[in-house]
């Protein structure tokens, strides 16, 4: 099955900058055809990991495989990438910048015009990049990443610094890639952004992977629970135990995972003479989960 072919495989990847451990023992795998959201707050280690994936910096430990091969300039030929802030030769026009990349990529001449049109820069192509807005520069970098019709696209915070209109355009572009047979890894510090485009997510925090899987699996990590505000939590837990309901101490009283048993629990507690002042179901949004996973150091 094509869907299970490895696009990226990181094993026990580590990177130290002197004393700073930027990436600590990361395992990550992206399958062909996925849009993989690489999610983590600023300073989590996303860019460091991506720089290693692209051979810009070398791992302190661990291995990187792309399409089941060790990373090399040969594997880089199959990847298009955009790392951190977009960059270009400021004194060249958009078209001239792409021409430099095109020659190095050894791709046909007509691709330059094609990618200019894809990112909507055809009209500005003959202007010097020094006069581009940040959004235009971002699109130019994206165009360069698409020049050789890569099988894998690695985008590091491609919407950073863009206005809402620009963010939307990039998002729509990224959404269209898998249908063209591309695998995408896109990083962000914003869950909301990843949620809209990714099929799979990896969450990194303080250099460590906290979660990897489908968005669904992430959602299922935390079932909704019931919080019961009660005057004697320890006693409440033992009463519920007698009723075969598992509960744990919670700042607001007790917490139980079996949502369907809420009414039964409430009845049992009142019958035992406890004061129940609130019963409510707590739903975790992906946002809550993300915040939970990326709390502390």
């Amino acid at each position, binding site marked *: 099955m094509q869907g299970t072919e490895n696009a990226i495989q990181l094993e026990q990847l580590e990177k130290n900058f002197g004393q700073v451990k930027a990436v600590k023992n990361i395992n990550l795998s992206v399958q062909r055809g996925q849009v993989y959201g690489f999610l983590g707050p600023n300073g989590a280690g996303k860019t460091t990991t991506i720089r290693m994936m692209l051979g810009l910096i070398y791992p302190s430990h661990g291995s990187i495989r792309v399409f089941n091969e060790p990373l090399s300039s040969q594997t880089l030929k199959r990847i298009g990438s955009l790392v951190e802030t977009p960059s270009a030769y400021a004194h060249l026009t958009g078209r001239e910048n792409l021409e430099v990349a095109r020659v*190095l990529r050894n791709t046909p001449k007509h691709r330059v015009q094609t990618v200019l049109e894809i990112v909507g820069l055809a009209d500005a192509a003959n202007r010097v990049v020094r006069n581009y807005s940040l959004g235009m520069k971002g699109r130019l970098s994206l165009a360069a990443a698409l020049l050789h019709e890569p099988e894998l696209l690695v985008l590091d915070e491609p919407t950073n610094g863009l206005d809402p209109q620009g963010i939307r355009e990039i998002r729509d572009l990224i959404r269209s890639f898998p249908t063209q047979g591309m695998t995408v890894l896109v990083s962000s510090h914003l869950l909301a952004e990843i949620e809209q485009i990714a099929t799979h997510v990896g969450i990194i925090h303080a250099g460590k992977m906290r979660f990897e899987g489908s968005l669904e699996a992430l959602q299922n990590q935390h079932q909704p629970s019931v919080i019961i505000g009660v005057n004697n939590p320890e006693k409440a837990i033992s009463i519920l135990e007698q009723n075969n309901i598992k509960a744990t101490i919670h700042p607001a009283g007790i917490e139980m995972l079996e949502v369907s048993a809420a009414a039964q629990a409430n009845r049992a507690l009142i019958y035992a003479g406890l004061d129940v002042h609130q019963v409510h179901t707590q739903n975790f949004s992906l946002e809550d989960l993300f915040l939970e996973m990326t709390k502390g150091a």
Partner: protein
Amino acid sequence: MLWVYYAEILKYKRTSALFLAIGIPFAINLLFLLVFALSKELRESPADQLWTNYLSGLHSSWLQLFLPIGLGILAALALGLEHQDNQWKQLLTLGVARVPIFLAKWLAVLSLIFLGAIALALSSLLIGGIVTGFQKIPWLDIFKAPLLSFLGSLGIVSIQVWLATRFKAFGVSIGVALFGAILGGIAIQSATYWKFVPWAYPAGAFGLANPNNTLAIGLSLAVTLVVVVLAARDFQTRDML
């Protein structure tokens, strides 16, 4: 490799690289035209001395000042193209190995210096010709000095290119170039110590002062080989942040 070099050359459009490489040699000639115009003694030297007087001042200023500093500036400029905006992160992810990228850079700077040497020869033919009334043109001398000094400069070009890959600041390149030029100027006075100062090789290659010019060219090529190998290795194995 050839297309990597071609892509490298494309980047110099609208930069001052070509203007500097070709413009500086012309400017030095104009300077010496002025010197001649102002100096009665020079103007009135015997006809067969005119060319020699003109070229010797021109060539020693080229060898000891404009060439070593100019190539430092050009190396800084060539690498500055990638440092600005941290363009490395794009350049090095395009599927071309790092060593050819480095060699293309080195070759581009060499090409500019070579153009500079040619420009020096042509402009001294033209402006020297005006000074001397195009009499008894010393063809060999006109072309020999720029070309020999080009060969003698390969070692310091390589050093400056390496340095410029390592240091973003223009000041480092210019500082080393200046210091090297001064050191080279002093070393070339000594029959022994010039061998240890690559900045003395361009003048040595031309046969200025006492050194033996084939040795200077040989040393320049040896330094080039060693430095290019070390620099390419360094470029290949280091983190590009």
